[in-house]
């Protein structure tokens, strides 16, 4: 019988889920890296098409919850091409009284340097590169930052791709300062039955076809859809965050639970 990957007790199991397939835990990281290497150049475009632009609204809500302020340091894990970090920096800068105060800073960390490269080379005036973000290739399970070194930790559509989620959550808490906050934006489970059926039909039929059309890579998007279904429910993921030592844990459903923002504080 295959192990239950959503079961925190089996976090150190030798197997991990890769979409609906079961692979050796050591292999998952490489497989996930291949997926993102393959889609990196058109990743942002693909997100727009898949969600009809809604992922931008979700990310905007995430930035609202972050409440960016001058002087704060953000670690955006799985930050890819840097869209969340860019919004964070721009919002912090536009705060009243931001002038003359030390600026906010953002570290974009991703296990895929191909994604970072796309973001870092971008010349878009509102992009993270132009706003002075830092770029580092690193693993959420082995974060290359000291204890208590950031004020905010975000991970958007990234935790699902981590092999040992519990380990990544403990690392998130470690690098946060006391009083710091963890926020995770991820696909989740739609809470309304009718929505769930429509969403299933869309994601299993439309998204792989769209992926094939835009990136010539159907398989990567089949993985994407399957990995969303394998991810723990809202309640279960909230428990995992609490088990990692976070306090004031909760979540907020977005678009009827198609996505959710989970949060916790290090106190």
């Amino acid at each position: 019988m295959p192990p239950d990957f959503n079961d925190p007790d089996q976090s150190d199991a030798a197997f991990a889920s890769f979409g609906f397939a079961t692979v050796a835990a050591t292999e998952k990281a490489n497989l996930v890296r291949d997926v993102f290497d393959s889609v990196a150049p058109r990743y942002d475009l693909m997100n727009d098409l898949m969600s009809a632009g809604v992922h931008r609204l979700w990310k905007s809500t995430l930035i609202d919850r972050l409440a960016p302020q001058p002087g704060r340091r953000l670690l955006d894990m799985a930050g890819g091409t840097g869209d969340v970090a860019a919004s964070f920096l721009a919002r912090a800068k536009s705060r009243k009284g931001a002038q003359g105060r030390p600026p906010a800073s953002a570290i974009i960390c991703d296990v895929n340097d191909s994604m970072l490269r796309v973001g870092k080379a971008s010349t878009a005036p509102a992009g993270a590169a132009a706003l002075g973000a830092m770029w580092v290739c690193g693993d959420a399970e082995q974060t290359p930052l000291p204890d208590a070194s950031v004020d905010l930790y975000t991970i958007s559509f990234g935790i699902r791709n981590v092999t040992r989620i519990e380990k990544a959550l403990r690392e998130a808490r470690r690098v946060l300062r006391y009083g710091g906050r963890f926020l995770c934006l991820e696909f989740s489970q739609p809470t309304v039955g009718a929505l769930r059926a429509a969403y299933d039909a869309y994601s299993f039929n439309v998204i792989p076809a769209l992926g094939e059309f835009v990136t010539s890579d159907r398989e990567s998007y089949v993985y994407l859809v399957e990995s969303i279904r394998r991810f723990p429910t809202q309640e279960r993921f909230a428990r995992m965050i609490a088990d990692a030592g976070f306090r004031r844990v909760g979540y907020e459903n977005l678009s009827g639970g198609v996505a959710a923002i989970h949060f916790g504080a290090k106190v």
Partner: protein
Amino acid sequence: MNVGNVTPPGPASNVGATERDGAGDDEAAPLPATEIDPRLLEVLVCPSTKKPLSFDRERMELISVAAGVAFPIRDGVPIMLMDEARPLDEREIARFKARP
């Protein structure tokens, strides 16, 4: 500051670790695409041991003596993954240990 300046800056290197620190700069000055952000040199640690790193500017590597490995820097992006790190030989470890 936890980064030892392993190689004295040569004539080609024009970015010092203090150039963009503090000073309340609102806008970060643009860096050459292949140069590592000096603010990262200040903050990064070894992903495995969480111990400080040394910057080897000549080879463009970040050295973890504690883990006995060197992390490459590609296009200005430090690659802090254990499975992409280069194992140090004993001579190198001795050399980096000798540094203050």
